[in-house]
C-alpha cells in the first residue's frame, strides 16, 4: 500500500520566553494510506495538536522544528515555501477545528463562506463555483441544502455549523482531511450526528483522514488504525480494533481503565476510578528513558535509563515498551 502522507522522525519544540526549549513532538514517525482513517489519541499536552499544525505548516513562530520530514506527494512540507503551502492547505490537505462557532464568519452566509474557499483555490469560474458549492451542501445537508447555504451561522445549530466546517474542508476534494477534536464541544446526540457524517463521507468519497481526539470511544468502529500519543511520542500504533479492545502499552491500558463504564454502573461501595498516578517531576528537565516510566504501574529498572524504542507485536501493531521485548 502506497502512502499519501508520511511523517518521518518529526521533532518539534516550543521556545519559552526565557529561551528554554520544551519538546512537543519527540521523534514521531507514521504513514497514512489512501482511504485510511487514522485515529490519533492523546491527552492535552501530548503533542497531538502540534502534529496537526505541523502537517499544514501552521506551527506558531515560537516553535522550532529540530528534525524530520512531512512527505506529501513526494514533497517535504517542512521545506516548502509559504506560497506553496498556501496552495496545498485547504485544497490538498485541510483541517477541521473543534470550535465551529469561532471558525465561521458571523455576518456572512455560510454558502458564501464555502464558495470563498473554492474561489481561493481557483476551482473554476463563477458558475462552476456556485455549482460545486451546491454540490457540497447537498452532500452534507440532503434535502435542505438551499436553506442552510443561505443561513447565517447564528441561525444554525452546533451540529449544523460543524457540518458547514466539514463542507469547507471537503469542498476542494482534498487528499487528506485532518480533524482536531471536531466533536469535543458537542453533546452526545450531536456528536453522533457528526460522526455519522464522517462515516458517510468516508464510504461515499473515500475520505482519507486523521481524526484527533482524547476520547477513545469515538474511534471505535470508525478508525482503521489508532496511534496513541504520550509526551510527544508514539506509545502505541496498531489496528483500531486491537488497540481499542486489547491495548498493550501500560499507558493506553491505564487510560482506558480510568473511563467509567456505561454498561456496568459501580457497586454501592466501589466509587473510586482507577487513575494514573501523577508524574512527581512532570518530566522536566527532560530525562532519558521511557517518558511514561515515572507514572507507569509496570515499570522496570531498565525503563529509567534506556529508551524503549519500538517492539513489533505483529506486522501492523507496534508498542514502545520494554515489557514486550522478549515476546
Amino acid at each position, binding site marked *: 500500500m502506497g502512502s499519501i502522507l508520511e511523517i518521518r522522525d518529526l521533532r518539534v519544540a516550543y521556545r519559552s520566553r526565557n529561551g528554554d526549549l520544551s519538546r512537543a513532538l519527540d521523534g514521531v514517525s507514521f504513514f497514512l494510506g489512501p482511504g485510511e482513517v487514522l485515529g490519533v489519541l492523546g491527552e492535552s499536552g501530548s503533542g497531538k495538536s502540534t502534529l496537526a499544525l505541523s502537517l499544514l505548516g501552521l506551527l506558531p513562530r515560537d516553535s522550532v522544528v529540530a528534525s524530520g520530514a512531512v512527505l506529501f506527494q513526494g514533497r517535504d512540507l517542512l521545506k516548502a515555501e509559504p506560497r506553496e503551502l498556501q496552495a496545498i492547505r485547504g485544497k490538498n490537505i485541510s483541517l477541521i477545528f473543534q470550535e465551529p462557532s469561532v471558525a465561521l464568519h458571523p455576518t456572512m452566509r455560510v454558502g458564501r463562506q464555502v464558495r470563498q474557499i473554492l474561489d481561493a483555490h481557483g476551482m473554476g469560474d463563477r458558475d462552476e463555483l456556485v455549482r460545486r458549492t451546491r454540490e457540497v451542501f447537498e452532500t452534507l445537508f440532503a434535502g435542505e441544502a438551499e436553506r442552510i447555504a443561505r443561513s447565517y451561522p447564528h441561525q444554525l445549530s452546533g451540529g449544523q455549523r460543524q457540518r458547514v466546517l466539514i463542507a469547507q474542508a471537503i469542498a476542494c476534494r482534498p487528499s487528506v482531511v485532518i480533524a482536531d477534536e471536531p466533536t469535543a464541544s458537542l453533546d*452526545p446526540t450531536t456528536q453522533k450526528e457528526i460522526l455519522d457524517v464522517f462515516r458517510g463521507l468516508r464510504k461515499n468519497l473515500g475520505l482519507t483522514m486523521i481524526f484527533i481526539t482524547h476520547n477513545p470511544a469515538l474511534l471505535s468502529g470508525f478508525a482503521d488504525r489508532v496511534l496513541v500519543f504520550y509526551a510527544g511520542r508514539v506509545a502505541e500504533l496498531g489496528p483500531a480494533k486491537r488497540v481499542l479492545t*486489547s491495548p498493550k502499552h501500560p499507558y493506553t491500558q491505564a487510560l482506558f481503565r480510568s*473511563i467509567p463504564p456505561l454498561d456496568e*454502573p*459501580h457497586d454501592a461501595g466501589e466509587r473510586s476510578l*482507577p487513575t494514573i498516578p501523577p508524574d512527581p517531576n512532570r518530566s522536566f528537565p527532560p530525562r532519558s528513558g521511557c517518558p511514561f516510566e515515572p507514572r507507569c504501574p509496570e515499570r522496570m529498572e531498565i525503563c529509567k535509563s534506556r529508551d524503549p524504542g519500538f517492539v513489533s507485536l505483529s506486522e501492523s501493531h507496534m508498542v514502545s515498551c520494554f515489557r514486550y521485548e522478549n515476546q
Partner: protein
Amino acid sequence: MNTAGRDKGMQPLLEVGNLVKTYSRRRLAGSGEGVRALDGVSFSIFRGTTLAIVGESGSGKSTLASCLACLEKPTSGAIRFEDKDIVTLSEEDLRAIRRQMQLIFQDPASSFNPRWGVGEILIEPLALQGNLGRDEMRTRAHALLEQVGLSSSMEAKLASELSGGQRQRLAIARALMLEPKVLILDEALSALDCSVQAQIANLLVDLQSSCGMTYLFITHDLAMAAHLADEIAVMSKGRIVEHGAPNKILNQPQSVITRELLAAVPRLGFAGTRVAES
C-alpha cells in the same frame, strides 16, 4: 444514599418545585412569545447525595444551574433551601445563601484573574465576605489546597501556570473556601482529559464522604453521571422527562429521550470500557 434519607423521612436540603424560567424574545424580530428555558422542573436533593442532570445542549440544564445559584431569578416556582424559599428572598439575604451554593464551571481558566496568584484567588471570596483575618484565611487556603490534592507550596503560582486538572482543583478549593453546603458542577469535568476526569471525580467522591458535600452534577456524560450520582434526572426542552437511580436509567430507560441519549454515547467495541488483563 438518597433513598436512605427519604426512608428516614429526612428533609431534603434542596427542593425545587415547578420551576419556570422564561426568556423574553422582545429584542428579536417579531413574535412576543418567550422561550421557556425551564418549564415546570421539580426535584429534591438530600444532604450528602448527588443528583445528576443530563440532557442535550439547550435542554435547560445551565439555566437551572443559574437559578439555583441565585444568579437568575426564576419566572415562577419555588426553590427551598433549608426551609427558606430563596426565590422570594431579598438581595441581601441572597448573599448569605449564595455562599452556601457554589457553582463550578466547565473552564475555570476564564473565571480566574490570570495575573493573580493561587493564594489570592482562594482568599478573595472570603475577603469579600470580610469575616476573617488575613492569617485565618491563609490557614484555610493552605488546608484546602492540600485537601483538593494540590500542595500548599503552590500558593505563589499564577493560575495561568496550572494545568487543566490543577485549575479545576483550584476552582473546587475556591468554592470550598466559603464552606458551602451544595456544589453545582456545570459540565465541570467535560473539558478535561479522561484520566484527569477520573482524578477529579475521585476528589468529589472523597469530599462527599469526608464532609458530606451535596452535589448537583450537570453533564452530558451519562457514564460519569451514572458513576457519581445517586439519582439521575434527564432533561429535555426545559422539563425533566425521567428521574431515577442510575441503574434504572441505564438499563431500563422509559423515555424516548433517555434512549436516544444512551444510543448516542460512543462506546469502545466491547462490553464496558474496562480493559481485561492480558
